[in-house]
């Protein structure tokens, strides 16, 4: 187990380094430069780029950047509150993004898994059919359409919920659901499928023959095995919530990191692109790492 954990740790670090390297060169390859403006004299842009060291050869810039990282130096944003350290920009916005993300994840798990179990228990019933229909529908609607649809219905037509900012508990509803719907439906579908598999197994029949109650069979015996693929899929689900947050934060004018991830790319704010990418990569790689380790705990049959 420990050896596995160590080995996975090393590969995670290598992955992170690859992400940093590829992003660094890719972003410089993309046409456009920081501080280019529609009506700004390119001569002025040139002077500024020189001041921030962007006239040096790429290789040198990369070495400088990576050595900077080791001393905890992530550079300064060129656009968003230009001159503010990237680390501070991210640190300041982490709480809001993480809060939203965690609530969305919690909703996805707490509603998605029981819904899936329920659908499996009532296999082929009306509930099951409605469930499959709506889950398939919501899984195929991308989050940017979902959020705009939510906004239109609850914000503009019904005027029930606020359209922008996070300043009351009501204002959390739309962004959180916008982010949670996809992972919730996808978890529910997965749970249903694996549950149906498990229910057909002999040991469930045995449990039934022994006269155990259905809820006990479902939640104690079936769900535990059905959970393994579900846990595996949690890693990608978290990625889904993260990428969903880019759109959701922008649309609802929420001051989290997701918005800066998108804006920094449009503005070619190199240090902030790197900073946000590293942050998201760390988060994702970390989650996958934990999920991998969790296998052993959930299923003792898996020897790591």
């Amino acid at each position: 187990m420990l050896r596995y954990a160590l080995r996975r740790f090393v590969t995670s670090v290598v992955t992170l380094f690859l992400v940093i390297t590829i992003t660094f060169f890719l972003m410089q390859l993309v046409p456009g430069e920081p501080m280019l403006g529609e009506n700004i004299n390119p001569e002025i842009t040139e002077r500024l780029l020189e001041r921030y060291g962007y006239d040096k050869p790429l290789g040198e810039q990369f070495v400088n950047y990576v050595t900077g990282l080791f001393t905890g130096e992530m550079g300064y944003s060129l656009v968003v509150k230009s001159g503010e350290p990237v680390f501070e920009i991210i640190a300041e916005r982490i709480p809001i993004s993480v809060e939203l993300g965690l609530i969305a994840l919690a909703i996805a798990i707490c509603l998605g898994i029981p819904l899936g179990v329920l659908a499996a228990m009532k296999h082929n019933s009306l509930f099951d059919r409605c469930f499959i229909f709506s889950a398939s529908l919501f899984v195929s609607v991308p989050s940017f359409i979902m959020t705009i649809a939510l906004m239109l219905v609850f914000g503009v037509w019904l005027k029930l919920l606020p359209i922008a900012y996070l300043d009351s508990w009501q204002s959390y509803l739309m962004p959180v659901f916008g982010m949670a719907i996809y992972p919730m439906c996808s978890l529910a579908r997965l749970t249903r499928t694996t549950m149906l598999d498990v229910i057909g197994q002999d040991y469930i029949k045995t449990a039934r023959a022994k006269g155990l109650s259905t809820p006990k069979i479902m939640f104690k015996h079936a769900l535990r095995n059905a959970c393994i693929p579900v846990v595996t899929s949690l890693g990608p689900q978290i990625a889904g919530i993260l990428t969903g947050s880019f759109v959701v934060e922008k649309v609802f004018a929420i001051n989290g990191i997701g918005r800066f991830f998108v804006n920094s790319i449009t503005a070619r704010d190199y240090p902030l692109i790197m900073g946000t990418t590293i942050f998201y990569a760390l988060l994702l790689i970390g989650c996958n790492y934990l999920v991998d380790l969790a296998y052993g705990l959930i299923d003792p049959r898996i020897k790591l």
Partner: protein
Amino acid sequence: MRKLLAILMVAVLALSTCVAFAEEAADENVVTIAMQTSPNLDPQWNAGATGAWLLGVMYEGLYDVTATGFELGGAERVDISDDATVWTFYLRQDAKWSDGQPVTANDYVYSLRRLVNPEISTTYMLDYGQYLKNGAAIANGEMAVEELGVTAIDDYTLEIQLENPCTYFDSILTYSAFFPMREDMVVEDGTGNWAWDAEKSVTNGPMKMISCDEDQEIVMVKNEYFHSADEIALDRLVVRLIDDTNTTLQLLETGEVDLINTYPSEETERLQEAGLYHASPALSTNFLLLQCENEPTNNALVRQALSYAIDRDFLCNVLFLGTKTPATTYVGGGFPGSSADTDFRTEGGDLISYDPERAQELMAEAGYPGGEGFPVLTCSYSNNSADYTTMFEYLQAQWEEILGITVVLEPLEVASMTELRDAGDFEITPQAWGADYMDASNMLSIFVTGNFINGGRYSNEEYDALYTQSLATVDQAERMELLHQAEAILMEDMGTIPLYHSNNVALYSDDVLENVAIGSDGKPILTDIIHK
């Protein structure tokens, strides 16, 4: 029990009426607007329209922008030397900063020196600094900042010497780069972020900032030290900062925001029907830049043929739903002509038209009869504008049909497009220029050889000579004549293909706001607005 309940209810009712009365008494005139996040609020770093809109109410320069033009603001009167090179301003003695200190000539001297200081490299140090005596030399590091031709003769007398005679320098002075600034507040870290600090933001205009979260909301209240505070209708301005224009529009429609001036252009028709769309013509031109150094667009005949094949009336009135004015030449209406009450455009007349047959003749004359042998023409434009998509699809159809050529459309992401344009690496690309000041010379200046907006590298010595001569000419009629000649050459060469003049837009409901006017700088004048 029932009695108790009744008494309680009466009490609650009475209390709530009291509260209502209290609110009535404190009835402030509050207007809420929305714009993109992080508007730059350093008058000399800002390059964006949103920053300029706010700076206009926070600061007062020597001149104020009005609905029709501009008038003296921070100065009471001005003496202009006969050759228009020395401008002496007598400042208002009752002008104060928002912390109560008087605004003096030294505050202007400080800010203008900062404008050209090469160590600070403000955004428009070259473009605006060049007007001031020694400004260009200082900006290029050839002279000390103290040599700038701006002097405080006494606390309330400011003398500005110019590099060249400039009779329209007053309209240039309306730009935010010339606002006075407080030396003890500005922090020089090369960013302009100090201006987001409500403590440091000491300003001399009608409104002052009381809180600022540059990602979410800026709040301003009336500056009680402003000399004409009694005439300002607005008590409080709330600026909500949101990047997504669809969200902004929905906030307007649900009444959470009162006024906006940018919106997704595909919503135009709906907004017009809902009565939210208010517009006035802008002092600007949208035109096509054509690559003048390479085949085939380096041929003036080809450029003319392309221009004759465009039906600008159809483009503006049908495709753009009347939200643009068709261009009849490069400089649009609204600029002063040879005297105070004439218009540059009316004097100059129309220089371009729609004539498909002429277009075909010109194409044949250029050596491409019926488009034969003409290489594929690529139009590059930024993909964030629905207007550009509409326009280029139309141009593609027209040119292919009338001229028999093949046109390829290349929509690009904004930053890529900007780099391409600056590098001159395109065949045809759209560009827009809004006048920085009310003089036709500003519009014409961008086609002088080497100007950075002139990405197609159009160059004509005669044009440059006429323009340069106009700069040194003091007599208005004579100067306008030179500019008319220059414009005629530009259109003869078709150095650019003018398309339309856009509108300044203000989106609001007449049921909510009244007294909304759009200033000559294109932005709704906030200080006069009354919230019903």
